[in-house]
């Protein structure tokens, strides 16, 4: 089937080469070439709600939450080497703190969300600290256990509304606040983290992933850097949780549901691990996909999984890397 005498060759586009050195920018086309993808993402995300009907706007809100989780997951997995399967724990701690503040103290949602974001992040970071020295699959599994543990504790002690949860929490002022709050946070988080990983702290984190021994021998306390990274990731997750509990005005043990741990990872894998923007893109593709499949009723999950596996197996580089390649390079066939 495959033609043995030809092979595919990939070459960088000349404009890519020209724009690589930052000081060499000389024309508008080159500027545009650099800015276009970023602008497309920002403008695209910000105008999307205006084009969609109300239901898809809601889906977009949910996608935003998954995007934040995926971003946090990608940061931890690809830049620190901590494969965290405990996204639900961040969601849960943020959601519960915000919801409880709102339900018991009556503070408004807009006030509770920032407090819960910070509080949830501090709480989940503190809880995860003892686990930080673990590596690879071991950290993955222990982080997978934390949300379940929280869930069982809440059921066993019957605290915070027990199995029924608490509903009728305060919601956000209006539909536009709901949607733009999350989108703006996603965009800010994405660019802030992209910036962060290229700062010194980002380099140190990558160093920890590549070779933690050498980092230790360089006089760096790797635990404190890991804590910082986990804190950042849990900030994102806790914000997502706090936001979610006010989006629907509810809190309950299903804030710790496995979906919040697994889906963001799927999004990262699909979008392209390690690219930061990829997981965000993945979340904004995967969540609507899962909603679009609702028409199939029960078959939905099965089809969804097939698509996912197809992606992982046949396009393991992920969406973003694929697009990036197409953007920066062209392909031609050459004869051997």
């Amino acid at each position, binding site marked *: 089937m495959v033609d043995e005498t030809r092979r595919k060759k990939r070459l960088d586009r000349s404009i890519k080469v020209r724009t690589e050195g930052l000081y060499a920018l000389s024309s508008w086309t080159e500027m545009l070439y650099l800015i276009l993808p970023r602008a497309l993402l920002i403008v695209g995300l910000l105008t999307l709600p205006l084009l969609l009907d109300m239901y898809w706007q809601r889906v977009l809100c949910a996608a935003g939450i998954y995007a934040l989780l995926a971003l946090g997951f990608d940061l931890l997995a690809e830049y620190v080497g901590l494969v965290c399967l405990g996204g639900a724990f961040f969601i849960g701690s943020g959601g519960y703190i915000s919801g409880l503040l709102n339900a018991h103290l009556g503070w408004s949602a807009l006030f509770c969300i920032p407090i819960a974001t910070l509080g949830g992040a501090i709480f989940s970071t503190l809880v995860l600290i003892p686990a930080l020295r673990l590596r690879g699959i071991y950290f993955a599994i222990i982080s997978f*256990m934390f949300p379940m543990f929280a869930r069982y504790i809440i059921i*066993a002690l019957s605290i915070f509304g027990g199995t029924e949860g608490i509903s009728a929490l305060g919601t956000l002022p209006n539909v536009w606040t709901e949607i733009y709050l999350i989108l703006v946070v996603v965009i800010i988080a994405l660019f802030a983290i992209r910036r962060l990983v290229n700062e010194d702290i980002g380099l140190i984190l990558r160093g920890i992933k590549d070779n933690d021994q050498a980092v230790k021998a360089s006089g760096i306390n790797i635990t404190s850097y890991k804590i910082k990274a986990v804190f950042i990731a849990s900030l994102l997750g806790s914000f997502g949780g706090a936001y979610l509990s006010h989006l629907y005005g509810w809190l309950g043990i299903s804030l710790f549901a496995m979906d919040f741990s697994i889906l963001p990872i799927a999004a990262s894998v699909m979008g392209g691990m390690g690219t930061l923007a990829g997981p965000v893109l993945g979340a904004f593709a995967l969540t609507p996909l899962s909603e679009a499949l609702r028409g199939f009723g029960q078959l939905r999950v*099965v089809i969804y*999984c097939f698509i*996912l596996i197809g992606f*992982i*197996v046949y396009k393991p580089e992920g969406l973003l890397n694929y697009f990036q390649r197409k953007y920066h390079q062209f392909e031609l066939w050459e004869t051997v």
Partner: protein
Amino acid sequence: MDILVYGTVNSVTFALIALGFTLVYGVSRIPNFAHGSIYVLVGFLTYSFINDLTLNYPLAVFISLIIASIIGLIIYRFILIRLRGLPASEIIASFAVGLIILEGLRLQGIGGFKGFIGPFYMLPNFIEGKVCILGVFVNYQRLIIIGAGLAMIVGMSIFTHYTKLGLSLRAIAQDEHAAMMLGVNSDRTAMISMSIGSALAGLAAVTILPLGNITPEMGYHVLIYALAICIIGGLGSWWGAVFASFLLGFSMKLSTALFGAMWESVVLVGTIIFILLVKPSGLLGKQKEFEERV
């Protein structure tokens, strides 16, 4: 007494569930998140063979186990083989396969398939009846579980120590590169380990399931138990897994007796977290394992 006898049964149950998972992880470093689904699938397959195709019991069990091992083979050959060394992808892909199986079992109305909904899918006991041990009534099925568990542990250790295939499995588990240089085909061995692992999951299913009902939700529990035991025991170590099964089996029974059943799950997860934090190498883990984990 109650605790002693039933704790033992509980523990052996755990060991049966976990051994297949440990084998796969030990040999190929693949966390098979579809383990629980295969367990449940074998239960339903056996049920269907007995009730819909009216096969006799041992034959039904035999065919289901064969199917399970083929499924394990397929999962590795077509999916996991391309993902070796990417833990996140491995987890996602195998979990997705598991979900497909579990959700597939519940689908209604496709090709006349009714879906396994509701609580009434049971396998018959091998032998009905019970005996009295130390003043506690134990039915034969539970003794069979203990027997099967012991047989499996002994069988596996003979297999891995004295057969060529078993030795190559162990070689891969200890040092993949060295083994490959010595001519052990890593992919083939991993594939075999997946199929044996799946068959072991199936074997666990057919011995344990006659005690209760089969529901798709069990897939998740089985997966969690398997993870828990492997982590606590030290991965790849038979005795570690067995030891961890006993630890969990008894601590869960004890917590039920002391604090009430709702603490059972808390104790389960709490033990895992505690052990990983205090002794990250697992209970019987060695220095090599420690370095790998921390």
